[in-house]
């Protein structure tokens, strides 16, 4: 019984993460310049990775017979999610800083698409 519930939760988390990854990829492809491309790249990727890692961590605990080693591996997966949650905004800020320093103007309405 509890296995069906856990499978449902895992499928929900993984599907939500896949939807967010798809949105991020299409946003990177279609946004007009690179300042606006950072919006899907930074936000949707970190949230999608968090949801998918959370789903895999729930799937890793075999709910019929819970063991300590499986719980430790799941905690390590959550550490990956926590690290990316801090590292992704830092990387995004560094990229924006390099663009500002190089003197690139943000895209405005009416300008031509860049790329």
């Amino acid at each position: 019984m509890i296995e069906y519930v856990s499978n449902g939760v895992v499928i929900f988390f993984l599907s939500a993460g896949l939807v967010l990854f798809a949105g991020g990829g299409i946003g990177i492809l279609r946004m007009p310049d690179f300042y606006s491309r950072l919006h899907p790249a930074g936000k949707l990727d970190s949230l999608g990775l968090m949801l998918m890692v959370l789903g895999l961590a729930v799937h890793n605990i075999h709910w019929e017979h819970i063991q300590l080693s499986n719980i430790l591996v799941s905690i390590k997966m959550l550490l990956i999610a926590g690290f990316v949650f801090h590292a992704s905004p830092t990387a995004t800020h560094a990229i924006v800083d390099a663009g500002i320093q190089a003197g690139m103007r943000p895209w405005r309405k009416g300008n031509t698409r860049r790329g």
Partner: protein
Amino acid sequence: MTSFLLFCGLFLCAMMLISLYRAVFGPTVLDRLIGTNAIGSKTVVLLLIIGYLYGRVEMFVDIALAYALLNFIAVLAASRYFYKKKGLREE
């Protein structure tokens, strides 16, 4: 459940191809950096899924953690390099 995980891995590979377009044809260097960063963050999840498919999650979770660290360091180092260099113009 294994077939659903396989579907997730294949879908992630398709999303990586979309990001790869931006990494190859991006007009500036920073566009390429965004594309590679997106590919790296998808690869972390793909490594975990590969670990489930092979049944060796306790080994692949360490590889995924190291890959996340390497991806972060690479993006940070590249953007600092172009910050110092100031050779980054619109092509």
